[in-house]
């Protein structure tokens, strides 16, 4: 395989990973807001969120592997797991390692949620709000293409999407399709003290 091909693949897969991760976060926020419409039940949002999260890991793996395997990068496999251990662009690459590991932790704890319990899962899931911006900064700092129009446009769109989703979450209350059945249950399940 041509070395340049590896390099293009790394860059292409990096961009795709960023887009996928952005979609994952936006879907996660929409999940928390319990957004739904006719023909789009809530489990569709959470299901897509989960599927795209796994997909992100796949393309991230492609991004990392092609970068490490590329003979010209002189990156060892260690740089993929130990942050700030590369001699090349130590800081910015290290950020990428961190973002990757945060994402890995989130996915692994999600798969093992039955074993670790709901609270632990939830705690680790908050890392997502760290993982994404770190990934964006990694892309800006490490990338060859940062100022290329195409990646600039992608980065801007992703940032706008996440900022808008967070803004939406903060301002809009979550709609609650369960409000009525929950109220019914609570009315039936109330305390009636005898003595």
């Amino acid at each position, binding site marked *: 395989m041509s070395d340049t091909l590896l390099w293009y693949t790394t860059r292409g897969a990096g961009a795709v990973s960023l887009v996928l991760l952005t979609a994952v976060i936006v879907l996660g926020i929409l999940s928390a807001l*319990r957004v739904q419409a006719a023909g789009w*039940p*809530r*489990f569709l949002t*959470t*299901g897509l969120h989960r599927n795209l999260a796994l997909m992100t890991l796949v393309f991230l793996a492609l991004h990392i592997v092609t970068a490490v395997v590329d003979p010209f990068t002189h990156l060892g496999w260690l740089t993929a797991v130990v942050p700030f251990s590369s001699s090349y662009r130590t800081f910015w690459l290290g950020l990428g390692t961190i973002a990757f590991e945060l994402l890995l932790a989130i996915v692994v704890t999600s798969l093992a*949620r*039955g074993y670790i*319990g*709901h*609270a632990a899962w939830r705690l680790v899931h908050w890392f997502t709000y760290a993982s994404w911006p770190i990934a964006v900064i990694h892309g800006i700092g490490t990338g060859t293409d940062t100022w290329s129009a195409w990646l600039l446009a992608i980065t801007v769109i992703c940032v706008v999407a996440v900022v808008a989703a967070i803004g939406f979450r903060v301002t809009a209350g979550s709609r609650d*399709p*369960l409000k009525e*059945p*929950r109220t*019914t*249950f*609570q009315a*039936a*399940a*109330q*305390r*009636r*003290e*005898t*003595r």
Partner: protein
Amino acid sequence: MTRLLDGRDLALGPEGLAEHVQRLGPLPAAGRSFIDVLVRSGLSGRGGAAYPAGLKWQSVAAQSNGTAVVIVNGAEGEPRSLKDRLLMTKRPHLILDGASLAARAVRAKHVVLYIGEEHHAARESMARALAERKDEERRLVRTVAAPARYVAGASSAAVHLVDDGIATPTTAPPSAHERGVDGAPTLVQNVETLAQVALIARTGSSTGTLLVTVAGGVLRPGVLEIQAQTTVAAAVELAGGASEPPDAVLLGGYFGTWMKAANAWGLPLDHDALRARGLSLGCGVIGVLPSSRCVVCEVAGIMRYLASESSAQCGPCFFGLRALADACTAIAERGANSEDLQRLRRWSAEVSGRGACHHPDGAVMFLQSALTTFPDEFAGHRAHLRLSA
């Protein structure tokens, strides 16, 4: 050897305090040191989880500094279970003895009797028995009505009801023994467990028996006190034998396991023995399904019930269980087609592990056990005229 149901004829009313003391002697004055006796006895809880009672008391006592709360769980949310009601109606003082011992052992400030709001006989019996007790015991006790909902019998629901007024179950920590009612360490114990405790305090060991409810196609359905390790077949015989040859047995109530009757007969009724086989006795309901009734239709009906009993805290349970119940009902009422089983599998996977409490998982496991034990019945089900129940 003593049994829980020894003494006064069960056809008569509750056993009063005088008779109780005459038969068993006065309640030993035991404090925190009793917990060691309880641990040595190896008594496991009778509420369904079979967690060692002694260990539970140890955890609560360790956290308590006089602030603990004891919840006497007589809610019996499982519809076909009758054992807790029976104990409350016939042997209330065994339960109150156990509660008193618990309160002293964990140094509780309050004791709450959690009894089903519709279980009038039990409530009356416990109230009368409580009135006979010593002042120093009665002072700590209050009675709270458990709502008539399936989930209300769960420990976390009991704690929530007593604490903030609504019987909502959860799995979220903290657990009751750390922070329960009013943030105090809370001991939630089933009434049968406490009845055993009352006897352990006098004899040093449990009775070696347990209470089961035999329900469904038997001649004398109801509660039995059986020796541990008694087989399912023997229990069914004691309940009068099957009214007609059964196809299926449901062991452990609506969150339990389905079995072909032939495989169930030899099973020993004992928590540890069953757990070793990957089964659970749960709250001790043995449901015998006669061959004249259809497994698929029963499963559909129970799934509809479990779906309707959702506390609507989360989407996977409320919408997911409803969807599973819909799919089961479709199979039951119009017959199965090639997509139905796949649909059940796919939709079950979407629900498992995603609930705010264990209710959806219990229902899914119930359905899975039916599907794995009776795949042909599901796959080949055809609509049939159902007898009005």
